């Protein structure tokens, strides 16, 4: 007689995909107004409809897309926009390095799409999934679920903004963006269990406030580096 073991958690690929999409739900809700605003602003900023869709489809980087619109409307040249895209997205290199140990064993055909889908939101959700104690061999399928759902969502809301434009109800006035803040807070708080980690977070928060006037998300990048430096220093001091 076969023994059926009770299942705990989703041990299967599709279960992981579903869990990744489900756990990204607050982020999907939070990103919706942004996608719609991007779609609405694209044509008035000088981008064609096809261009706006292509951007959401193959660039897939919210902040960079918004900044590109602003620069386009201001008549900036190609080189300036590309350089700005580079600076705005530099923080993703930090995410890429942080997640590397978890994806290093995957084949290229996995690492390429997962890199494409590496956003702030999926990074946050994956941190939590990779920290979970279970030894599921399919955590990259969870990543797929999060990335794919964020991707489809971003495209649909861009399209909605393009097609419906100003006739779309003012989603941004609903306060849906708070869902993102709540999720990031819920993910980060349990990490702050020891002094170096808490120090890193406090330093990063303070630096982000101090650098909030800097353009192109540079404040965020510098704040992350400041937090990391403080964390390392505190950890070393404790060790000696």
């Amino acid at each position: 007689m076969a023994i059926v073991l009770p299942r705990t958690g989703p041990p299967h690929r599709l279960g992981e995909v579903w869990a990744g999409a489900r756990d990204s739900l607050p982020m999907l809700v939070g990103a919706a107004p942004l996608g719609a605003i991007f779609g609405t602003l694209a044509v008035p900023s000088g981008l064609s409809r096809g261009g706006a869709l292509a951007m959401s489809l193959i660039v897939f980087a919210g902040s960079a897309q918004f900044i590109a619109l602003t620069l386009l409307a201001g008549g900036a040249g190609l080189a300036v926009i590309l350089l700005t895209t580079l600076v705005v997205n530099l923080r993703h290199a930090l995410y890429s390095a942080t997640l590397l140990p978890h994806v290093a064993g995957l084949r290229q055909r996995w690492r390429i799409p997962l890199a494409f889908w590496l956003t702030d939101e999926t990074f946050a959700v994956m941190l939590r999934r990779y920290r979970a104690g279970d030894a599921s061999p399919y955590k990259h399928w969870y990543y797929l679920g999060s990335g794919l759902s964020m991707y489809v969502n971003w495209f649909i809301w861009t399209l909605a903004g393009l097609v419906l434009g100003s006739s779309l109800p003012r989603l941004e006035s609903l306060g849906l963006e708070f869902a993102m803040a709540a999720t990031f807070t819920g993910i980060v708080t349990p990490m702050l269990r020891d002094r170096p980690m808490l120090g890193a977070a406090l330093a990063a928060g303070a630096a982000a406030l101090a650098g909030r006037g800097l353009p192109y998300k540079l404040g965020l990048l510098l704040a992350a580096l400041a937090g990391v430096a403080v964390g390392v220093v505190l950890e070393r001091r404790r060790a000696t």
Partner: protein
Amino acid sequence: MNARELALIAGMTLVTFLIRYSFFALGERLAFPPLVRQALRYVPAAVLTAIVVPMVLLPDGVHWQVTWRNPWLLGALASGLIAWRFNHLLASIGGGMAVYFLFRLVLK
């Protein structure tokens, strides 16, 4: 879509992807030295805090709102407290959003 726009989008795609793929590309060929490994452990807490703190304390991006009349601040505090006490993400998000929307209604 004209040629200029095509170049713009192709360029942005390339730049964005190469940054995201930078470390993933290396796979198992890259072993970080101990100092880098130690430093990377602090990236999550540092980045997430750096994203959230300005959002919550200056919701409009310009004006400080360190008061109980700021639903962003109250909602985030609720999320943080629930996450800290119960380590349950869904409850933390739900609780934070409940507080946020409640105070938006009350303070309107």
